[in-house]
C-alpha cells in the first residue's frame, strides 16, 4: 500500500514538473518569436538606412533596387516591401497561434492529470481513514461481548457453581454469542451500504409476509425476555422497495425494540401498518426505555449508543438504526422516531411508497 502511494505521489510530481516545463516552453517560444521579429525589423531598418545613404550619395536608383531586393526603393522613400512585411507578420502570427494551441492543449491535459491524481489521492486517504476508524470501532464493539463471554467461561472454570448458576451462565454465554452474530451481520450490511455494494431493486413487496417472517424468528427470544410482540399488518399492503432491504429494516427495527424493552423487565412491541395516501407506514411501538427528545438526532448515527439510565442499558452495536436509515433513504422511503422521554417507550415509523398490483408482489 505504501509503495503504491509512493508511486502515485511520484507520478503526480512528474506531471507537475512536466506542466511547469510546458508552461515555461510556451513563454520562451513567445518571447523568442517576438525577439526574432524585432531582430528582422532591425535588420531591414539597417538595410533601409544603407539604401538611403547610397541614394543620397548619388548611386543609381536601379542599382540600389537590385542590391536590396526586400526593400521598396523609389526616389521619395525607402521601406520594407509590403509583401515581405505581410509575410513577416503572417509567420510570426502563425508561430504564436501554433504555440498557443499546441502548448495550451498540453498544459490543459497535464493540469487535468494533476487534478485527477490529486482527487484520487485525497479520496483514497479519506477511504483509508474511514476504514481505520470503522475497524477501530468494530473491534471495540466486539470486545465487550467477548469480555463477557470470557468472564463467564473463566467463572465456570474457577468456581464450583450450583447447576442453576451454571445454567444461567450458559444462557448468558449463548446470548453473548447471539449478540456477536448479530454484530457480524450488521457490520457486513453497514459495510456493503457504505461502499455502495448493495444492488437495491425497487419492486412490490408484500409487507405482512415480511413482518410475520421476521417476527416469527424473534418469538423465542421475546418470550425469554417477557416481551409480547403484536403484529397488525393488513394482508394486502404492498410497498415499493427492495425485498431484502425491507427484511433487514424490519429485523433491525424489531431488534432495537426488543433491546429497549428487555432492560425494563419485559413489555410489549407492536407493529402496525396502514396505507396513507400513496404511501404505506409501518409503526413499531415499544414500551421500553425510550429516549430523551434531545437524543433524537443521535439515534441514526453510526455507532451511536444511547443509555436511558434508570437501571437500563442498551447493548446493541450502534449500527442497527444507521442501517435502517441508509436503506430507507436508498430505497425511496424514510424513517422517523419519537419518544415521550426516558422510560416511556418509543415509536419508529417506516414509510415506503405504495406498490402496484398483487400479481407483481414478492414477499
Amino acid at each position, binding site marked *: 500500500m505504501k509503495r503504491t502511494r509512493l508511486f502515485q505521489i511520484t507520478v503526480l510530481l512528474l506531471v507537475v514538473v512536466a506542466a511547469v516545463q510546458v508552461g515555461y516552453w510556451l513563454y520562451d517560444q513567445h518571447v523568442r518569436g517576438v525577439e526574432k521579429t524585432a531582430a528582422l525589423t532591425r535588420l531591414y531598418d539597417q538595410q533601409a538606412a544603407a539604401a538611403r545613404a547610397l541614394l543620397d550619395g548619388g548611386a543609381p536608383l536601379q542599382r540600389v533596387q537590385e542590391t536590396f531586393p526586400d526593400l521598396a526603393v523609389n526616389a521619395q522613400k525607402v521601406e520594407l516591401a509590403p509583401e515581405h512585411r505581410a509575410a513577416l507578420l503572417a509567420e510570426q502570427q502563425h508561430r504564436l497561434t501554433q504555440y498557443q494551441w499546441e502548448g495550451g492543449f498540453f498544459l490543459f491535459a497535464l493540469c487535468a492529470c494533476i487534478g485527477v491524481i490529486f482527487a484520487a489521492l485525497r479520496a483514497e486517504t479519506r477511504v483509508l481513514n474511514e476504514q481505520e476508524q470503522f475497524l477501530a470501532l468494530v*473491534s*471495540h464493539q466486539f*470486545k*465487550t*461481548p*467477548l*469480555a*463477557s*463471554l*470470557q*468472564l*463467564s467461561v*473463566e*467463572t465456570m472454570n*474457577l*468456581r464450583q457453581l450450583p447447576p442453576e448458576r451454571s445454567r444461567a451462565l450458559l444462557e*448468558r454465554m449463548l*446470548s*453473548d454469542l447471539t449478540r456477536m452474530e448479530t454484530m457480524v451481520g450488521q457490520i457486513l450490511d453497514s459495510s456493503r451500504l457504505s461502499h455502495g455494494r448493495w444492488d437495491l431493486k425497487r419492486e412490490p413487496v408484500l409487507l405482512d409476509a415480511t413482518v410475520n417472517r421476521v417476527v416469527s424468528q424473534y418469538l423465542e427470544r421475546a418470550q425469554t425476555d417477557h416481551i409480547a410482540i403484536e403484529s397488525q399488518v393488513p394482508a394486502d399492503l404492498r410497498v415499493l422497495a427492495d425485498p431484502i432491504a425491507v427484511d433487514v429494516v424490519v429485523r433491525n427495527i424489531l431488534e432495537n425494540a426488543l433491546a429497549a424493552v428487555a*432492560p425494563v423487565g419485559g413489555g410489549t412491541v407492536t407493529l402496525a401498518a396502514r396505507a396513507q395516501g400513496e404511501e404505506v407506514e409501518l409503526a413499531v411501538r415499544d414500551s421500553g426505555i425510550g429516549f430523551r427528545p434531545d437524543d433524537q438526532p443521535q439515534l441514526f448515527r453510526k455507532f451511536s*449508543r*444511547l*443509555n436511558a*439510565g434508570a*437501571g*437500563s*442499558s*442498551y*447493548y446493541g452495536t450502534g449500527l442497527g438504526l444507521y442501517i435502517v436509515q441508509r436503506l430507507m433513504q436508498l430505497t425511496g422511503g424514510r424513517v422517523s422516531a419519537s419518544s415521550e422521554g426516558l422510560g416511556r417507550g418509543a415509536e419508529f415509523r417506516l414509510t415506503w411508497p405504495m406498490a402496484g398490483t398483487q400479481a407483481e408482489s414478492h414477499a
Partner: protein
Amino acid sequence: MSEPVYQVLVVEDDPHLAAGVVENLRAEGFRVDTVSDGRRAVEWFDTHHCDLIVLDAMLPGLDGFAVCRTLRERGTKTPVLFLTALGEATDRIRGLEAGGDDYLAKPFHLQEFLLRVRAILRRWEWYRASARTAGSDVLKFAGNEVDFRAFRGRSWNGEEQELTEKEAMILKVLAEKPGEIVSREDLLEKVWGYDVFPSTRTVDNFILKLRKRFERDPANPVHFLTVWGVGYRFIPEPAP
C-alpha cells in the same frame, strides 16, 4: 483480626459484563454496588463512598475518564481500576492521567482482574495504615507540613497545598526512608503496581510537582534529589 470487607462500585454499561464482574467480586467477599452510566456514577458519590471503583471508559453520557476527573476534582481519593475495550498505550496514559490507578483491557482474565483489585486495595491499605500510625500521619520538614490523612499540606511560604493521592503516596514512600535512595521501580511498585506505566518517566513528573509545592527553589532542589539512573533521595533537613 478478620480481613476488612471492602466496598466496590462497578460502573459498566454492559449488563452481562457488569453482572459477571459483580458476581465474581461478591464471591471474593466484596460488597458491590453497580451503576450503568457516568453521570449516575458521579451522583452515587453524593450519598455513598467505597474503597475501589471499577470503571468502564466508554460509558454513555459521561465517559469513564471524565467521571474519574470529576471525582478527583471533587476531592474523592478512591482508587480507580479502568476496565475498558480501549487498549492502546495512549488510552492507558489518558486513564492514568485522569487519576486512575490501574488499567485492564477487555477482554481480560478473571484471575488477573481479581489480582489487580487486591493489589490496588493492598497498596491503599498500606498507605492508610501507615498514615494512621501515630507520629507518621503528619510530615514536617524545613518549614513544610503534610497531613497524609487529609491529603493537605502547607509549604514553607505558608501556601496551602492540596495533594493528589499519588503525590501523597510518593511522598509517603520517600519519607519512610529519609536520606536513602528509592528507585523509580520501587516507587512504581508501591504507588501504582508493576506494569501500569509504559515508562518510569511518569514518576519524574510527580517528583517535579512535589518540588514545585515544597522546594524553595524547584530548579535547585534540596529535599527531593534525583540520583541519576537510579531514583530519588528525600532529605528532610539538608545540612547548611
